[in-house]
C-alpha cells in the first residue's frame, strides 16, 4: 500500500527574512538571495505564516481566512496557490514533501 505523500511549502531558511512594515505594505529583505521585495498584505502574511512553520496550501488558505474574515471560497484558495507559486519564483518559498 502506498503511503500518502503530502506536498507543502516552506521558507528556504530560518532567520533570512527581514521585515519593515508600513500599514498594509511590507518591505522584505531576503538575506539568502540579497533581493529586496515590496509585498502587499496577503503575500506578506502568507510568508509570515510559513516562517512559523511549513504547511500545505490548503491549510495556509484557512489560516489566512481566519485572520482576515475573507470568504474562504475556492477562488481564495486558488489565489493562495498562485501566491505561493509567485513566492517560489521569487526564491522566497519552496515546494517540498512534508
Amino acid at each position, binding site marked *: 500500500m502506498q503511503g500518502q505523500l503530502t506536498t507543502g511549502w516552506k521558507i528556504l531558511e530560518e532567520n533570512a527574512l*527581514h521585515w519593515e512594515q508600513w500599514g498594509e505594505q511590507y518591505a522584505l529583505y531576503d538575506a539568502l538571495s540579497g533581493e529586496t521585495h*515590496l509585498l502587499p498584505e496577503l503575500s506578506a502574511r502568507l510568508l509570515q505564516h510559513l516562517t512559523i512553520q511549513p504547511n500545505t496550501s490548503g491549510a495556509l488558505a484557512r489560516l489566512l481566512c481566519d485572520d482576515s474574515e475573507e470568504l474562504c471560497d475556492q477562488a481564495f484558495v486558488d489565489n493562495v496557490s498562485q501566491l505561493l507559486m509567485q513566492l517560489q519564483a521569487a526564491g522566497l518559498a519552496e515546494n517540498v514533501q512534508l
Partner: protein
Amino acid sequence: MRLLAGLAHEECRQRLADRGILLQTGPFIVEVRSDLDGFTGLLQQFYGQFPMVEPPAIADFHVQLLSPPGIRRWWRPQVRFLLDGQSPFQPFQLSHAFPLFEWGLNWSIAMQAQQYLMLHSAAVERAGKVLLLPAWPGCGKSTLCAALVSRGWRLFSDEFGLVRADDGQLVPMPRPIPLKNKSIDVIRDFSPDMEFGPEFHGTRKGTVAHLRTPDASAAQLHIPAPPGWLVFPRYRAGASLRLKPIDKPQAFLKLVNNSFNYQLLGLQGFQTVTRLVRNCECSILSYSDLDEAVDTLTQLADA
C-alpha cells in the same frame, strides 16, 4: 592644517608634478598628481579653500591627470585620468581636464567608498538637518542644489548622499557644483555673486561650468548631520509649485532604485534605507520657478 590657497601657484604646480598634493575633500583624502600646466590654476580656484594634508598620510584615492604618451601629447592633445595607476576610461581632450578630474573622482568614490550607503542625490543642510534631493533624469537637482546653496544652505554634495550605517547621519563632501547648458545662465541670474569657473564646451553633457563651493560649506566639511527631509524634485516648465507628501513604501522604493550601492550593501543597505525613510518627511516637489522652490524648501526646514 593649511589651505590649498596658501600655496603659491608655482609651488603648487611643482608639487602636483612631483609627489602630489593631498586634499581633504569631506571624509576622503585625495592624492592629486598632474603634469598638466593648465590644471594647477583650476585646482586652486576650486579647491583653494580646502585643507591640504601633510604627508605621510593614508590617502583614500590616488588620482593622476596626465598627458598620454605618444602622439596624443601634442596632436589633438588629450588627458588621461588614472585611479591608482590605472586608466578606467578613455582619455578626454586636454581642454576638458578639470571636468574629467571631477567626473573621475566621483566615479572613484562610487566604486570604492562602500563603507557608506551612497545615494545618487544632492544633500544640503539647514537648521541642523539634511535635505536630500534624489536624482532622476530631468529633475534639475544640481540647479536646485546650487540655488539653495546660494541662499545660505550648507552644501554637503550635489551628487552623493553619503549615509553612515552606524548612526544614519549624512557626511558632507562639498565639491564644485557642475551645471550644464541652460542651468548655467539660470543660476547666474538667480545668484550673481556665486563664483563660476570657465565654461567647457563640447563635453558629453554639452556645456559645463562649475560653481565654487561656498567658503562656509568648505569650512564645515567635517561636520555631519542627521537627515530630515527626502524631497524628490520634479522640474516641469510652466508647472505650478506643489509639495506633495508621499507614503513611506513609495519613498523606500524610489530610494532603493536611486542608490549607487544598495544591492552591494545587502542587509545593511536595507536597514540604512528603512531607517532613513522612517526618520524623514518624504515628498515630491513639482516646480518650474526656482525662487518659489527655494522658498518652499526653506520654509519646510524652518518650520
